[in-house]
C-alpha cells in the first residue's frame, strides 16, 4: 500500500508538471460540448420532454464527463517509463509489481476528479444544473473519476504489451466508437433500432445513463445508478486485470 501511495504521488506530480499531457484530453470534450450545444440547442429547447426542463447542455454533460476522463494518459506515461528505462528501475526494486499499476490508477483517480470538476464548471457556466443537488454533484465527480480509472487499464495493458507510443495512443480508437454508439445525443428510445441494439450492449451507455439521471432528475434513480456502478466495477475489474497480467508477463 505504501508503495502504491509513493508511486501515485510521483504520477500526480508528473501530471501536474506535464499539463500538455492532460489538457488536450480535456480540451476536446469541452470543445465538443460547446459545439454540440451551439448546433443542437435550438432543435432541443428546454421544453423538449427528455430534457425535463433543463438546457440541452445538461443532457450532454455526462457525455463530456465520460469523454474527458477516458484517456490514454497513464498508458502513455507507462510507455515513457519503458522508453527511458525507469520501469526497469522499478522492476528491479523490491516492491509488489502490482503497485506500479495501482500507483498509476490512483493518479488517474486524482486526475479524474479534477477533470470532472472542470467539465462540470464549464457545464454550469452554460446553464446546466444538477437536479439531484450536492449529493448528485459528488456522485457525478466520483463516478466519472472511477470510470476514468476503470478505463485506464486498457491503455496501460496496451502500453506494456506493445511498448510503443503510437499503438498506446491508438487505444483511443477503441473508445471513440463506444462513446458514439450510445444514447449520447438523444435518449435510447429515440435512436434508430439498429443503433439502439448496439447501444444496449455497449457498457458506456450505462455509464452515461447513470450520470445523466443524476443531472436530470431531482431524486436518485437507483436502477440506473446501480447499472452505472456495476458497469464501472466490471470494466475496471477486467481492464485492470489485463494490465496487471501484461505487467506480470512484461519481462518474459
Amino acid at each position, binding site marked *: 500500500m505504501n508503495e502504491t501511495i*509513493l508511486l501515485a504521488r510521483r504520477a500526480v*506530480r508528473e501530471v501536474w508538471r506535464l499539463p500538455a499531457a492532460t489538457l488536450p484530453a480535456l480540451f476536446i470534450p469541452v470543445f465538443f460540448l460547446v459545439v454540440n450545444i451551439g448546433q443542437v440547442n435550438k432543435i432541443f429547447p428546454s421544453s423538449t420532454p427528455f430534457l425535463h426542463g433543463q438546457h440541452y447542455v445538461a443532457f450532454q454533460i455526462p457525455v463530456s464527463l465520460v469523454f474527458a476522463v477516458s484517456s490514454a494518459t497513464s498508458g502513455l506515461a507507462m510507455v515513457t*517509463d519503458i522508453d527511458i*528505462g525507469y520501469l*526497469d*528501475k522499478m522492476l*528491479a526494486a*523490491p516492491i509488489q509489481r502490482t503497485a506500479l499499476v495501482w500507483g498509476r490508477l490512483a493518479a488517474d483517480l486524482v486526475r479524474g476528479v479534477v477533470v470532472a470538476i472542470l467539465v462540470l464548471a464549464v457545464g454550469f457556466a452554460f446553464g446546466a444544473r444538477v437536479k439531484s443537488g450536492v449529493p448528485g454533484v459528488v456522485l457525478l465527480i466520483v463516478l466519472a473519476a472511477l470510470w476514468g480509472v476503470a478505463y485506464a487499464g486498457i491503455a496501460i495493458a496496451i502500453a506494456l504489451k506493445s511498448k510503443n507510443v503510437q499503438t498506446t495512443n491508438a487505444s483511443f480508437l477503441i473508445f471513440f466508437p463506444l462513446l458514439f454508439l450510445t444514447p449520447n445525443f438523444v435518449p435510447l428510445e429515440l435512436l434508430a433500432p439498429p443503433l439502439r441494439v448496439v447501444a444496449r450492449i455497449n457498457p458506456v451507455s450505462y455509464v452515461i445513463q447513470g450520470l445523466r439521471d443524476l443531472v436530470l432528475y431531482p431524486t436518485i434513480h437507483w436502477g440506473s445508478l446501480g447499472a452505472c456502478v456495476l458497469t464501472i466495477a466490471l470494466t475496471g475489474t477486467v481492464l485492470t486485470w489485463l494490465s496487471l497480467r501484461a505487467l506480470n508477463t512484461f*519481462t518474459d
Partner: protein
Amino acid sequence: MTDETVLAIDARGLVKTFKGSRGQPDVPAVAGIDLSVERGEVFGFLGPNGAGKTTTVRMLCTLLPITAGTATVAGVDVQAHPGHVRRLIGVALQEVGLDPTQTGRELLELQCGLYRVPNPKLRAEELLGLVGLSEAADRTIKGYSGGMKRRLDLATALVHEPSVLFLDEPTTGLDPASRITIWDEVRRINAAGTTVFLTTQYLEEADQLCDRLAIIDGGQIVSSGTPDALKAELGSDAVTIGLDASDRDNARHALGSLNGLDHITESEDGLAVYVDDGASVVAPIVQLLAAAQIHPNMISLARPTLDDVFLAATGRRIEGQSTETNAEVGE
C-alpha cells in the same frame, strides 16, 4: 547474507535465448556462461556491443527470465527468490532510468521509500551530497547534464546500501571528465564494501577499475582473469612497425629469424611484432629490415593491452576493427 565465503555472484551454465519473431530462428544471446565473482571485488564484463553483457546483467538482476542454468547473487537463487535478490542488489542500467519530471531529491526520496529506507529525507540528502548534486537537488532532472544524470542514477542504486551493485556500461556516452568522476565513485563504493559487477566496452575502464574481468563475445566467455594476468598470458611486448603495404610480406619474412619472436600480425599501419623483450629487439628489427632494403616509417613499443587480449581471444579488435586479413608467422 553475512557469510563471507558465499560468492557475490555465482552463475553456472547461464543461457538466454530470445524467441525469433515471425518464423525467424531463436536468437542465442548468452550461450552457457559460468561466472564466479568474489565478495568485495570489482568484476568487469568486457565485450563489444551485442556480446551478451546487458542480457547477462538483466538475468542476474531478475529483469529477464533465465532460459537455462543457475545463478545466485549474494547467495540467493535468482530464479527461486527474485524478490529477495532485489533487496540485496543495486542496479544502474545502460539506459539511465530517471523520471525527468521529478527533481533529484524527489526521485531519491521515492527510491528510498520503495526500498523502505528508515529516514528517506536524510538518506536522500546524504546521497545527493555524495554524488555532488546537492545544489541541483531541487531542479527537475530534465535539466541535468548527462554526467549529472549518471551520478544521480548511481545514487538511486545505492539508497539501501546494496551488497552487490550492477553497473551496465556506466560511462557510455559521457565526456572524459564525467567518466573519471564515475570511476572515482565506483572506487569509493567498492572501498565501502560493495561488490561491483560492471559491464563495459571501454578497455581503459576495465583496466582502471576491475580486479578481475571476463571477456564475452558472441554470448560466451572467451577469457577471464585479472587484467595483468590476461595481458601477461600473451607473454609478449608488441613492437608496431609502420610500413607501406607493398613491404609487409617482405618485412614479415625478414623478421622471421628475430630472437625471442612470438608471432607477427598485420595491423592497420603495418605489422605488430610480438616478442619476449621489446626493448632488446628494436635495434635488431631495424637492422633486419635495413638488410632487406625495407624502410619503416615508424617503430613503437608497447606492452600488451586488453585490446590485444581481446584480439587474441576473439580474432577481432573490440572497437570493431576487422582483422580478418591478419596472418600469423613465427612460432
